[in-house]
């Protein structure tokens, strides 16, 4: 996992609420056994029309989108399916941060584990950001995970919270598996006092 400490970038704005993971990456692209390559299909059905042509009005098709590392989305982003292909596709496209006012639980967990930072801003701060980006679409936003602050184009700083453990993993570019593997003795102790409920083998 690529560590993430702070980044300053322009944004792509997709303000719809309740964007589900079927939109982020439609199921027909889940037949892959790889993590990479999904960026080409990110938001496939919104990006491309029935004839396979890019819809010019869709924000991700703007030439400016290619160098943006921040996606600004609406409330409850990532609801629905547990597919980790959703954060993989966002990362593969080039995003490192998604800003919203709230995320679906499984999406947030998956994002944090793959190096995509979900930033939940307060509703007023999120509205301010949308207004400022409507005025200056190329304006830059700074996300600092160390201090857990988002600095908007107008220079105002707004706090966000990331689980301390997930934050540690993201800052250092380590995943949780290393920590869990170190719990071997505690896991073995648990297993010695708790009989298995079933046996599948």
């Amino acid at each position: 996992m690529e560590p993430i400490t702070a980044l300053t970038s322009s944004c792509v704005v997709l303000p719809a609420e309740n964007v589900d993971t079927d939109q982020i990456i439609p199921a027909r692209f889940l037949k892959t056994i790889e993590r990479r390559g999904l960026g080409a299909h990110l938001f496939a059905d919104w990006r491309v029309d029935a004839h396979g042509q890019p819809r010019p009005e869709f924000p991700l098709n703007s030439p400016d989108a290619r160098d943006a590392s921040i996606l600004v989305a609406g409330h409850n982003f990532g609801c629905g399916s547990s597919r980790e292909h959703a954060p993989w596709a966002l990362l593969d496209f080039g995003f490192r941060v998604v800003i919203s006012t709230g995320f679906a639980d499984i999406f947030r967990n998956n994002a944090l584990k793959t190096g995509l930072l979900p930033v939940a801003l307060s509703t007023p701060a999120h509205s301010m950001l949308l207004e400022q980006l409507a005025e200056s679409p190329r304006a830059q936003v700074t996300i600092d995970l160390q201090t857990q602050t988002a600095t908007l184009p107008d220079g105002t700083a707004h706090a966000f919270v990331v689980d301390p453990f997930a934050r540690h993993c993201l800052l250092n570019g380590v995943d949780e598996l290393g920590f869990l593997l170190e719990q071997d003795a505690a896991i073995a102790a648990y297993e010695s006092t708790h009989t298995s409920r079933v046996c599948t083998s």
Partner: protein
Amino acid sequence: MTSPRTLFEKIWADHLVRPETEGTPAVLYADLHLVHEVTSPQAFAELRRRGAPVRRPDLTLATMDHSTPTTPRSAGRLHVLDAQASAQLEQLEINCEEFGIRLFGLDDSRQGIVHVIGPEQGLTQPGMTIVCGDSHTSTHGAFGALAFGIGTSEVGYVLATQTLLQRQPRNMEVRIDGVLPRGVTAKDIILAIIAKVGIGGATGHVLEYTGSAIRSLGMEERMTICNMSIEAGARAGLVAPDDTTFEYIAGRPFAPAGADWDAAVVRWRGLSPDETASYDRSVQLDAASLAPMITFGTNPSMAIPIDGRVPDPSDAESRAERADLDKALRYMALEPGQSLLGRAVDVVFVGSCTNSRISDLRQAAAVMRGRHVAAGVRMLVVPGSQNVKREAEAEGLDRVFLEAGAEWREAGCSMCIAMNGDQLEPGQSAVSTSNRNFEGRQGKGGRTFLASPLTAAATAVSGAIADVRSLS
């Protein structure tokens, strides 16, 4: 003395390898890990990269369901959609072989949708923690098991350590009392709950379904309700186990037997919320006031009674909600204030982990018997497992569906996920017993109306969305 606890709190406490601290989430033990072909290959690849074995293959079971074809087997062979789907199915075989995991593959008589076969095999038992790389893992909560969906990274963590890092979710009671009117089913209850709570309304919560209406439901109906807990944003849904639960489990292949069974039932009887336990939130629903429900929009919370009217976006409480509704009605080609009754459909789908069990098929068949699928409508009936299929055939349900002009398929996720060959064409409309009506969920450009098996069958024979209560 411990303070009064909810069912969720009891199961949570019983699975803590390490309690959570401010800096570290809890280390939670998983009693059962279910694996399928779509969300596991990258997890096995990670294990291989690290040289890590699967810690407890004896607590792990794999099956094939998502990219699995459901077309009738000709000469015993299944026709997989394409090379990529074949490679994915083959990869699961390779992974299970290499890591020593039991696989109910396509040629196994126990194969089926992962959330159908767990309960069917007696693997799903009260008080357990169950995880799977699939959001509808919440289904297993019907047995009083804490069951939730995880991503592929977490699939890898559980394979390697049998544990997960988790912050304790909050707890919401959903109480449903009263007697269900005729024509109203478990599917209608859960669609009404999601409409009330909202698409993200239960985010961060585990739901506990209580009340007399829940107690009177059979296990398959409870599974339908718990299955869709995720559609309100909840991690999991739970029903406290009772005699209905124990009767369902008794005698199943992986259920305890003999003295172990007696001991298990004693343990399971302790799994109900303490009388004075309190919840972070509570919602209530009166079963007697419910009608058959159907969705009109592009997420499962956009649902109305079948004889109701499509809401007007201009009545929405916020600008965002109005935009959401506007977009949904445009996609679904609906007008505000319109009735859905009589709206023509192209396809009817009975199946998925929500409604593909024997009781669902019996309900649909009861409507279909002596009737015919309307001209121009395609109806697919897809049993949730090979066991369900055999049971249905032994009862003659396959004949009912085939004689009515419906297709009778092999077990799998089918048209719920549209990655296996079963799907809508752009612009087509379907009444579907599955769980998601997101844009394109059943095929790019397809329009989905979620409803119960009764409503689906009534629609199939009518050729348009129909109220099963007014079918003569």
